Every structure is written in structure tokens, then in C-alpha cells.
């Protein structure tokens, strides 16, 4: 199956709900090793995305991603704003000008977005950041694509890998972001950004499965 603008919009709608529902959880994770705002930031960001998409409905998939990027960059701030903003900016740039995108396009788009996060934040895998959910997810999705899996299977594999990656951050010591100030005391806590990234992939897998 392929993903059209309605599916993309559905994903963003679900994301808005997901971050609203998980606002407190994400904020609590950020209390332990950060500054207690990650859930608030994500919720504010995707509420702004929803408002922006409603106010100025974009004509094509690419411009949906551009609007999302702009809304996140303008309304989130903190670390999450530029990082997720860059993700969608690069995803837009990598998005073919088609009304429906295929599995290969979807993987390419995630790949570009995640590259953008790496460049913007200069973190690497193992630093205990959102990349620890995103990089394994990207790997899994690429493998799925190589193996000729369906988009649903690819996204499921991505979500599963992101989930494992998110859990793996518990044991890590943070080397980037606010949690790095705690040194060894950051060990034992799940990274909030890795958690929001897992939720992002999970929502894609859930909404684009049919």
C-alpha cells in the first residue's frame, strides 16, 4: 500500500492526540534527568501543528511536512523544537512530488529526517538521546525495505526497534543534552526524547498499517 496526503494528515492528527495523552509521562521522564518540560513541549508543538494545518491546508504531502516543520520550529523551542523541526524540514526536502508515496519513499524520508537530527544536534548513537530510538528504527526499516517487506511490516519493524532502542536508553549514561550534566546519575532513567521518537514511529505504524 502507499501513503497519500490523507494518511499523512491522519498520522499528524494521531500524533497530536498521542502527545496530549503522554504529556505527563514525557514530562515526568524529563523531570528525572532534565527540566520537566518535554511532554509540555511536544504537546504544545503538535497542537500548533494541528492549528496550522487547519488554518492553511497544504496542497501536497511535501508542503504538509514543511508546515509541520515551521510550526514545530516556531512553537516548541528547547532542544526538541529544532530537532523535530529539522526532521520534518529534511523529510519535506526528501519527499517526492507525488500524491502517493511508496515504501521506499517513506524510508528515504525518515532517513533524511534522522540525518537532519544528527547534523543539527551532533549526537551519535549511545549518547542517550532520541537518536537511540531513531537510528535502530531506521536500520530496521532499511532492512525491511531490502527484504521486500510491505510498508506496514517495515513500519512495524521500525516501531519495534525504536521501542527496544528507547528501553536501551535506561542503561545509558547521557553524553548530550541536559541529562549529560548529571554524569553517571543519568543512568537508570529512560530518555524522554527517545520516548517521544518511539511514539512518533508507533503512530506511523498504527495509522499507515491498513
Amino acid at each position, binding site marked *: 500500500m502507499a501513503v497519500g496526503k490523507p494518511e499523512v494528515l491522519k498520522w499528524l492528527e494521531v500524533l497530536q492526540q498521542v502527545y496530549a495523552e503522554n504529556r505527563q509521562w514525557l514530562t515526568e521522564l524529563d523531570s528525572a534527568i532534565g527540566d520537566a518540560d518535554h511532554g509540555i513541549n511536544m504537546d504544545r508543538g503538535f497542537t500548533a501543528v494541528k492549528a496550522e494545518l487547519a488554518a492553511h491546508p497544504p496542497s501536497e504531502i511535501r508542503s504538509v511536512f514543511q508546515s509541520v516543520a515551521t510550526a514545530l520550529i516556531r512553537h516548541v523551542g528547547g532542544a526538541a523544537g529544532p530537532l523535530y523541526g529539522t526532521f520534518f524540514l529534511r523529510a519535506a526536502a526528501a519527499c517526492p512530488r507525488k500524491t502517493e508515496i511508496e515504501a521506499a519513499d517513506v524510508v528515504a524520508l525518515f532517513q533524511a529526517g534522522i540525518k537532519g537530527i544528527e547534523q543539527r544536534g551532533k549526537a551519535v548513537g549511545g549518547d542517550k538521546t532520541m537518536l537511540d530510538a531513531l537510528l535502530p528504527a531506521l536500520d530496521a526499516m532499511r532492512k525491511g525495505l531490502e527484504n521486500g517487506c510491505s510498508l506496514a511490516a517495515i513500519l512495524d519493524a521500525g516501531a519495534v526497534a525504536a521501542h527496544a532502542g528507547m528501553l536501551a536508553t535506561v542503561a545509558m549514561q547521557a553524553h548530550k543534552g541536559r541529562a549529560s550534566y*548529571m554524569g553517571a546519575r543519568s543512568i537508570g532513567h529512560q530518555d524522554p526524547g527517545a520516548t517521544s521518537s518511539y511514539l512518533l514511529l508507533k503512530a506511523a505504524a498504527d495509522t499507515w498499517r491498513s
Partner: protein
Amino acid sequence: MKKLINHPQNVPAEFLAGLALAHADILKVCLDPVYVVRVDAPVPGKTGIVSGGGSGHEPMHVGYVGKGMLDAACPGQVFTSPTPDQIEAATRAVNGGAGVLHIVKNYTGDIMNFEMAAELCQERGIEVRAVVINDDVAVEDSLYTAGRRGVGVTVFAEKLCGAAAQRGYDLARVEALCRKVNGNGRSMGMALTSCTVPAAGKPTFELGEDEMEMGIGIHGEPGRERMPLLPAAELTARMAATILADLPFRGGDEVIAMVNGMGGTPLMELYLVYGELERILRGLRIRVARRLVGNYITSLEMAGCSITLLKADDEMRALWDDPVLTPGLQWGI
């Protein structure tokens, strides 16, 4: 959570509304995107000075907008750095044709948002330089952290660069001064209690009745070490020792010192700590040439304090004494 607020989400905006009403002679608050700017901006030919960061550190930064200090400040949500569009708009509003210095505290979010803003400004042909303040000795500066946080020295950098720009320093000279200030300043903080982010609704961390958090930042983020509460004399000695060893400061140095309250600590205790600090410094033949004692860079209602020392040369001391007229710092006018 008990706060003098209406709705948790509206705190930063309603705070700015009150600030604007109270200080209409000094500054104005622009909305959409949000920034606070000197009433007389842009000052033609003057190097512009812009800073910004999360809200919750008042009077920093918005309380330092005014003659002799910042031309504009960009407040984010509580403890969340501002967005690039705010910073870009503020930079455009203060550019008097001589370029603009961004004073950025070293946090991942601040760095990235200011970087994105700088790119936008450069596209519009505004010359922007950024100096990153990273004075917090509680954080090891290594490949394995995001680097030292920017804390108390930010106040000094904003005052001194603001004075320099007012005197007519060009962008390169103000930038060089800012780097010198950052290079010669060190800070450390501690907390007796947590603070509560309004939108989060509960304290970021909990401390036992006899505990304190050493090496705290300014965002309610936990510090480096949790330990039993010490008497003020020992506490001050320990913080001073860490700061002094780092630069290092030496006998014969002159310093500008700050004993800063985190928001919930009475002035009485801050002066008590200042007394301990000056006695220690005198014992080491370090002279306190100028000082601030009070709430200058806070963490909402957190109880605790931080100490900042800046090794000051003649230029810095003279710039310090220059007139300043902002809601948070005011003298000579």
C-alpha cells in the same frame, strides 16, 4: 502547586504584560513572535545586543533590557529556549546597521535555536556573531557532556557588553569582550529545594529535609551530587574552592563577585553567604572590586544560591560602572 497565577499555560505571557505596564519608559513587549525590546531600538550605528532563553530566570533576560545592557531579549516558555523566529525578529528590531551580538547560554536547545536564527538573519543580510557562555564549573567540560552550562556569568556578560556597545564598540570588539568575560568567569550553584514548572504542576525533584543538591543548574535539573546540608560557612568554602581552582583565580586578582539567589532564598541568607565569601577571598588576597547580592538569575521559586566570580581587568571594571537602566539592574542614571 501554589502560585500567584491564572492559568499555568499563560504565565510567561501574562508576566510580560505586567512587565510592559510597569516599565513602559524602558522597554516594550512585541508579540507574535514574542520579544522584549528597548523603547528606542534600533539605535543607529550601535552594535545590537540580544540574548534570550527560557523564562523562569527573572529578572534575566527580559529584565535586563534597557539602556546600557540588552537591546532585546527573547523569552521562551518556562525553562524552554526561545524559537528561531523570535530571535530573528528581535535581531532585526535592534539592528542599527552595525550588526548584532547574540549572547547564548550553553544549552543544546539554546544553541540550536540561536544557530537557526543566525542563519535566518544572515540570509537577510544582518551581521550576527554569537558568543556561548559556559561558566558552570559543576559540569565537567568534556567530550562526554553537552559542555558547561551558561549561568551567572551571563549577567556579567550582558552588563559589560551592553555598556561597551553603548560606548560605541563595534561588533568585533564587543564579541571579543564577551569572549574575554566568559573566559574569565566561573560559577557554581546549589539548591535547598526544587522548583515547580507551572505547566508541569509539581516539583521537578524532591529533596529530603537534611539534603541539598550541589552543582545545580538554573532549570531545576538535578545537580551533580546530593549531599547532607552544610552550614553556610562550609558550603561557601566548598563552592568557592571549586570555582577558584578552576580558572584558577590567584592572590592579587581583582574580581567582580555575585551571590545570586535562586528565587526563594531570603536576602538575609544571601548576604550571610556573601560575608563568608568575601572573608575567604580576603584570606587569599583576592579583592572584590564590585559585587551583586540578590536575585539576578533565578529558577522560579527554588531555594538556594549560586556564586559567580569574574576576574576583572580595568576595562571590565570601568564598563561595570557605566550607567545602566533596566528593570533588573539600575545605576548611574
